[in-house]
């Protein structure tokens, strides 16, 4: 356990990718650094432990990336998903800097691999970490320890002494006692509030009780709350979070990647009344992925059921829990505790509406429905080949968008737009500046790596003054 009583040059709050990038960078510039992670060691790393890649601009193929991914295309992808809720200057800066991240990452122990099985669509844009995000986090912690970064686990920053935009000290709870930790500069890299159910309920009402959280229970957003309460500029939609449809049988917290279920486009999705409620064939995976959590959250009791027949088997990433299986639609309904007559009726009407076409899951094909609401515009095939399978779905909350404003040097902005004297922010806590809404695979890690390194550099420089 490091000495919490002494004064450090740089105090880093958080223990994920951005925090580690900041701590390593600041330490290499000669600053004394304390990193404070609220989770115990086994669950360290925040949401980074569940990530798997980094979206990387590149002009030519690299050892792990195919073809090229130029700045403008990257920017357009971001523009598309955010619907303009972004800051072009910060975004383009992030995109350009992403091209220089991987050598630094390799230097600090991160290893890359070609895109994973089932993720060919990302092989051009995203560099995958060998072993995934936890392996990356482990490598950074090894690197930080070797450099002499002091690390406190199970240590939660609960309050900050912050006056006129200047940080003086933090109140850190550890092992039942409260410590006042002072430092010359602060890096806030402690993520969002996705695990904070009461906070989610503020935005979503009682429905949030039924949400499953994909990360650890430690992403409470306490530092974010304190910063905003004490005058930091808030950015990003305070009420929104990124939610995907995951298996309802997943654990309440920390189910991570493996709980996702994506056979939505191969069948139909019904709510607890066995009624369809949205076009399952509207679009491809990235968009589908980003909207279905919210769609399920909008249904009664926040539950839905993805229903497929045996034609779909083997055509989607295998989910972690086996499907509920039955020889007939009625039986399947009973097994899923749905009204058998209602589900039979829904399937019958859906099947009758399916128009003939040439099924092609790799394109927006011509298999659509006619005369049914909501329609299924692509990949519609009758559900008629037993056995039938069902997966129960719930919203799985990945991350939140609310953050604090920053400038290009990662310096936190106060509500009046003035930069803070010695507070810097990196990672999910400021990602809302750039990703105000939507989802772009691997972009969170890009923001964290780019701004983590800048925040570390600036904090070290600031501490020297």
């Amino acid at each position, binding site marked *: 356990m490091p000495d919490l009583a002494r004064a450090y040059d740089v105090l880093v709050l958080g223990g994920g990718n951005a925090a580690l990038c900041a701590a390593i960078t600041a330490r290499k510039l000669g600053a004394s650094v304390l990193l404070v992670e609220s989770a115990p060691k*086994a*669950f360290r790393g925040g949401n980074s*432990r*569940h990530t*798997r890649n980094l979206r990387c601009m590149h002009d030519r193929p690299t050892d792990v990336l195919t073809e090229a991914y130029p700045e403008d295309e990257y920017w357009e992808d971001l523009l598309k998903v955010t619907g303009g809720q972004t800051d072009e200057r910060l975004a383009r800066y992030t995109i350009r800097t992403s091209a220089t991240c991987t050598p630094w990452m390799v230097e600090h122990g991160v*290893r890359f*691999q*070609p895109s*994973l*099985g*089932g*993720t060919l*669509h990302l092989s051009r844009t995203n560099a*995958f*970490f*060998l*072993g*995934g*995000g*936890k*392996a990356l986090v*482990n490598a950074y912690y*090894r690197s930080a320890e070797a450099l002499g970064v002091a690390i406190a686990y199970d240590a939660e920053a609960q309050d900050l002494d912050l006056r006129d935009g200047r940080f003086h000290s933090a109140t850190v709870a550890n092992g039942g006692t409260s410590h006042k930790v002072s430092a010359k500069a602060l890096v806030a890299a402690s993520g969002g509030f996705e695990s904070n159910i009461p906070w989610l309920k503020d935005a979503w009402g009682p429905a949030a009780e039924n949400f499953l959280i994909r990360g650890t229970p430690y992403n409470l957003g306490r530092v974010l709350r304190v910063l905003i309460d004490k005058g930091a500029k808030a950015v990003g939609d305070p009420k929104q979070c990124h939610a995907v449809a995951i298996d309802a049988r997943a*654990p309440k917290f*920390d189910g*991570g*990647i*493996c*709980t*996702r279920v*994506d056979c939505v486009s191969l069948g139909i999705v019904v709510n607890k009344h066995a009624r369809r409620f949205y076009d399952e064939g509207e679009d491809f*995976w990235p968009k589908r992925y980003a909207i279905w959590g919210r769609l399920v959250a909008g249904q009664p009791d926040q539950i839905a059921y993805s229903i497929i027949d045996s034609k779909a*088997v*083997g*055509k*989607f*990433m*295998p*989910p*972690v*829990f*086996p499907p509920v299986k039955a020889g007939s639609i009625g039986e399947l309904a009973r097994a899923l505790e749905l009204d058998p007559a209602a589900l039979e009726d829904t399937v019958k009407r859906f099947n009758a509406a399916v128009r003939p076409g040439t099924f092609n*899951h790799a394109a927006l094909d011509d298999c659509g429905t006619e005369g049914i609401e909501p329609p299924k515009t692509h990949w519609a095939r009758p559900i008629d080949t037993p056995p039938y399978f069902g997966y129960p779905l719930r919203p799985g909350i990945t991350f939140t968008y609310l953050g604090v404003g920053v400038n290009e040097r990662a310096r936190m902005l106060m509500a009046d737009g003035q930069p803070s004297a010695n507070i810097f922010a990196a990672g999910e806590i400021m990602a809302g500046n750039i990703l105000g809404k939507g989802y772009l695979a691997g972009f969170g890690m890009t923001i964290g790596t780019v701004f983590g390194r800048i925040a570390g550099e600036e904090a070290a420089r600031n501490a020297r003054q």
Partner: protein
Amino acid sequence: MPGSDLFAKAEFNMQVCNACRYCEGFCAVFPAMERRLTFAKADLRYLANLCHGCGACYYACQYAPPHEFDVNIPRNFAQVRAETYRRYAWPSFLASLFERNGVVVSLATAAALAVFLLATFYDQAPAVVFAAHRGGDFYKVIPHGVMVWTFGLVGLYVLLALTIGFVRFWRETGEPIHEFVEPAALGHGILDALHLKNLRGGGDGCPYPDERPSHKRRVFHHFTFYGFLLCFAATCVGTIYHYVFGWMAPYALWSVPVVLGTVGGIGLLVGPLGLLWLKGKRDPDTDEPAQFGMDAGFLWLLFLTSLTGLALLALRETAAMGTLLAVHLGVVLGLFLTLPYGKFVHAVYRVAALVRAALERSRPMPEVTFE
């Protein structure tokens, strides 16, 4: 752990891994897993034997304990491997030896055989055993014919037992026997074994004995394996000398068999000691404690085989030769007899699994994913 729980756990682990896939770049297990949607016992036995127990996936795992999914592939697959070793053992009633073949039993077997041999030599000709022999002629102590017959028969038995084990393993995978000798896959599989490609952890080595990646285990395994191979080569050359050229042992210090045996012997001193050292330091989180005895017993026998062999070589012209010969032959015989019922069998099933993995890689990817 009772059998069904063990396989239920292994099946759940593979379902988690197959839905996650982050560890795909570490070793051959995960790409092989991705070719499947369901994991029957036969699949799990194959995948477990493909696993080298390096630990890379454990430290990278989001679902490792204390996560409630409790995914621990190195330990779980070590337990499945132990089950397969018993399952494929021949004759089947000797399968329980795997559980008893710890350090004490291995060493006691070797010691008992050494004492027995010494007593037999002494019984034949007491004066000869404790005399010094010019040139270290050990055939004075044990006639060539007796040695050849003893070790020949034991060797054939061992070969038979291992072959039957291999056939049982291969059959259970569902592959026809002739597929094993498909040249390209056989070549790839053997090459992967010779390089220990799957202990590279994707480049930096594997986190063994603790979470820091290193090549230590690969290096010490190479010492062990190639040491073993050189000693075997020494025996083969000696056999050729004897039967083809009529050149009788003992051979000169700089002769091919003695040089091969000495270099190999050094490998068999360094390798097993290194592996035992790493084993002692291994992170208890990834270890399977029930397997320690079997592994350590085999490593100690390898070490002692070499130590007694080198001692015999060094002192072959002294009066200690007869005793050392009995001890060395006792250890070698102990090693041979325990080969089919101890850690050595991992080599058979590992190579078979690697060849199967290479075979599968040569075939088109079955339709098991779409995203």
